[in-house]
């Protein structure tokens, strides 16, 4: 719905700028300074959007380079990151599951969100979809496959691929094998450390539980899907 409201408001705003001078007319003339300002405005705003996208991207590259550990530091131990997370009093762990996109369809609670939010949050891992944390104003700080939290480098969790999707960061597992090493294929438990208000965390936890219940209730569907995937 947000998308359509945005387009409707944007359409009205755009149309007003085009129609008013043609229909109503503009009395007097604009000052040269205002003309120059309006002339430069589109480039400035587009450049701002480009800068907002490009500089954080460059920062992620720098951070990725910085993670090439200094001599003597143990592999996988990113002390600064851990300390930063621990300083956040609101950081909480929320379980999430790996579900196939097809499996999620037909579930009322997910269908409600699916139209836009799940689609935005889904993240392909092999042929499957990491469907989690849909459309909530939370920020994912860290994702780890259960039981392997101590070795994030080995999991190849691409920390430089954090994406802001509807205010939710979704990280990609770099290798399909990482997902398949999880606890079975029915529910691959992930650990999500994220920062958000307590009520948001509660809602997200409930969403994750819904997904987990869904997968647990229909393991044969997921198995069939995964079998087809492996066979294909």
């Amino acid at each position, binding site marked *: 719905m947000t998308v359509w409201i945005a387009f409707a408001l944007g359409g009205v705003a755009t149309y007003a700028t085009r129609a008013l001078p043609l229909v109503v007319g503009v009395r007097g003339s604009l000052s040269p300074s205002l003309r120059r300002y309006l002339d430069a405005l589109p480039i400035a705003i587009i*450049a701002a*959007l480009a800068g907002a996208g490009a500089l954080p991207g460059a920062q992620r590259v720098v951070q990725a380079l910085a993670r090439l550990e200094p001599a003597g530091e143990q592999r996988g131990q990113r002390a600064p990151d851990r300390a930063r997370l621990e300083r956040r009093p609101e950081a909480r762990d929320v379980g999430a599951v790996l579900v196939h996109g097809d499996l999620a369809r037909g579930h009322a609670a997910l269908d409600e969100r699916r139209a836009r939010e799940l689609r935005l949050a889904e993240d392909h891992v092999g042929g499957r979809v990491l469907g989690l944390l849909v459309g909530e104003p939370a920020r994912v700080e860290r994702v780890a496959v259960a039981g392997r939290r101590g070795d994030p480098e080995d999991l190849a969790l691409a920390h430089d691929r954090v994406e802001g999707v509807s205010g939710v960061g979704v990280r990609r597992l770099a290798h399909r094998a990482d997902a398949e090493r999880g606890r079975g294929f029915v529910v691959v438990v992930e650990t999500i450390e994220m920062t958000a208000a307590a009520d948001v965390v509660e809602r997200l936890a409930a969403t994750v539980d819904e997904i987990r219940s869904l997968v647990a209730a229909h393991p044969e569907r997921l198995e069939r899907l995964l079998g087809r995937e492996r066979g294909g």
Partner: protein
Amino acid sequence: MSPARTAVAEGWPVLLTSAVVGITFGVLARQSGLSVIEASGSSVIVFAGASQFAAIGLLREGAGAIEVAASVLLINLRHLLMAASLRPYVTGTSVAQRLGLAYILTDEAFAMGIGHFRRGHRDLLYYATFGTLLWACWNAGTLAGAIFGAGLERPERYGIDFAITATFLAIVALGVRHREDIVVAVIAGLVAGALRLAGATTLAVVIAGAVAPIVVLLARR
């Protein structure tokens, strides 16, 4: 040659480009999470290329409707100037006709139309034909791109997830006409990037873009 045919003969390279850019928009919109209908709806309702790219960039970042609409308004404020320039040539038309002509007013339609008028012509058919064809090309391109974009799996393999930023950079590069534009763009880009790194919202970033030209204008005095 009739004004309509002249519009096609003179404007086909622009129309072709519009279709190609429309395809790009459709692909990016799809990869930003919009459905085919939403992508096409954007092109039908807003019909303003640069601001549509900005809108999907903002929506991808999780911006709200007001933020997106405000950004679209800021980007399209220049149409006030274009429409005011066209007003002398539409004085003989009805209000309904003017409303229709306003809908197809884009940068390209303005450039082609005002060029036609400045060559001494007074008929509006040239402008109306070109604007309508441009609308058709843009929307057909969007639809094709949205359908094609839906078939792309793991878009990051093709770098499409960075394509919106790259498209913004291309729009800026193509839009630079004076040295001052470069200064404005660099200031806006750096300030917005710094704000983003500091955790600012997308609206703050866009406002930084709106303020950058003021800084440059004040510096000239």
